[in-house]
C-alpha cells in the first residue's frame, strides 16, 4: 500500500471517527444528524478507497456489502441508546461476519459463529437485558463517557494497525491440504482437496487435540463458575451501600481551588 493510499485510509478513519463521536449517545446537544452525514461520507470514502485498490470487481461486491453491513451494525451496537437494540444489531454484526468468513472459505467457522453467537450468547445477553434493564431510558444509557478521548484513542489504534496492513502479500493459491500435514490421516482419501470442515476437524483432532481438550475443560470451569456466581447468598455483614443516584455523582466536580 503506497503512502498516499495509507493517508487516504487515515482520512477515512478520521472522518468516520468524527462521525462516531457525534453518534455516541449524549444527553445534551445530540447531533446525530451530523454523525450520520459524516458516517455516510466515511463509508463512501471507504468504498472509494477499496475501488481504487481492487482491480477486478468480481467477488468484491459481496465483500463490500457485508463489510459495510458489519461496520454499520457495529457502529449501531455501540451508539444505540437502548441495549436491546444494541444486542439486535450485534446479531447483525455476527451474521455479516459469518458471511465474510464464508467469503474467506471458512465455512465451518461461519456456521459455528452463527450457532454459538446468535443462538446462545445473544440469547443470554437478551435474557440479562430483560432482567436488569430499567424501564425507560436511564441516564447512563443516554450519555457516553468521555466520547472524545475514546474516539481519539480508538482511531489512533486502528489507524496504526490498519496502516501497516498494507504490507501483507497476496494470498497463495490453494494447495493439496492432505499432503501438507506431516502425519497423514488414514481415513481421509488422498489426492483431493479437503472440504473446510474436514480440514478443520482433521487438524483439530490431530495437531490441536490438547487445545481442544483444554477448551472443553475451560467450558466446564466456566459453567461451574457461572453457577457459583449466581448463588444468591452473600455475607450479611457486607455493608449494603446507599441507593445510587446517577445524576448525583457522575460528572460532579469538586470546587476548583
Amino acid at each position, binding site marked *: 500500500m503506497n503512502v498516499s493510499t495509507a493517508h487516504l485510509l487515515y482520512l477515512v478513519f478520521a472522518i468516520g471517527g468524527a462521525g462516531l463521536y457525534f453518534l455516541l449517545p449524549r444527553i445534551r446537544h445530540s447531533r446525530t444528524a451530523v454523525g450520520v452525514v459524516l458516517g455516510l461520507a466515511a463509508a463512501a470514502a471507504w468504498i472509494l478507497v477499496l475501488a481504487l485498490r481492487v482491480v477486478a470487481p468480481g467477488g468484491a461486491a459481496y465483500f463490500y456489502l457485508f463489510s459495510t453491513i458489519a461496520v454499520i451494525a457495529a457502529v449501531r451496537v455501540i451508539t444505540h441508546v437502548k441495549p436491546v437494540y444494541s444486542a439486535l444489531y450485534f446479531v447483525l454484526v455476527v451474521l455479516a461476519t459469518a458471511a465474510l468468513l464464508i467469503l474467506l472459505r471458512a465455512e465451518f467457522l461461519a456456521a459455528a459463529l452463527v450457532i454459538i453467537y446468535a443462538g446462545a450468547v445473544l440469547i443470554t445477553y437478551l435474557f440479562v437485558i430483560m432482567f436488569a434493564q*430499567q424501564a425507560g431510558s436511564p441516564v447512563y444509557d443516554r450519555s457516553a463517557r468521555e466520547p472524545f478521548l475514546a474516539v481519539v484513542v480508538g482511531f489512533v489504534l486502528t489507524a496504526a494497525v490498519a496502516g501497516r496492513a498494507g504490507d501483507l502479500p497476496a494470498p497463495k493459491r490453494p494447495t493439496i491440504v492432505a499432503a501438507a500435514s506431516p502425519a497423514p490421516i488414514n481415513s481421509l482419501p488422498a489426492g483431493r482437496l479437503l472440504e473446510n470442515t474436514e480440514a478443520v476437524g482433521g487438524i483439530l483432532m490431530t495437531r490441536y487435540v490438547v487445545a481442544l481438550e483444554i477448551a472443553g475443560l475451560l467450558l466446564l470451569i466456566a459453567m461451574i463458575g457461572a453457577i457459583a456466581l449466581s448463588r444468591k447468598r452473600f455475607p450479611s455483614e457486607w455493608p449494603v451501600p446507599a441507593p445510587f443516584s446517577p445524576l448525583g455523582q457522575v460528572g460532579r466536580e469538586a470546587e476548583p481551588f
Partner: protein
Amino acid sequence: MPGVTEYVILGTILFGLGLIGFVSRRNLIVMFLSTEVMFQGVVINAVAFARLHNHVEGQVFGLLLLVIAAVEAGLALGMVVLLYRRRGTLDAEAWSLMQG
C-alpha cells in the same frame, strides 16, 4: 478480488469500534457487547491470516477464540447480574466510589 489486506483492515475497524464502545458506554451490558464486537474483529483477522498462509490453523484459532468468547460472555453476564443485585443499576459509574 479483495486481498487479505482489506479483510485485516476490516477486522481492525471492527476491533477499534468495539474498543470505543467498551470504554465509552456506561451500561454494563453494552460494554460487554462491545467486547463481543471486538472478538468478531479478531476472528476475521485470524481467518484472514489463515487465508494468507493458505492453512486452516487460523480457523482453528478462530474456533478456540469462539470458545473463549462464549466463556467470557457467560461469566461476565453472571457478574453483571451480581453487580446489578448490589446496586440496583447497570451503570458502570455506580462502582466509582471516589469523589472525583
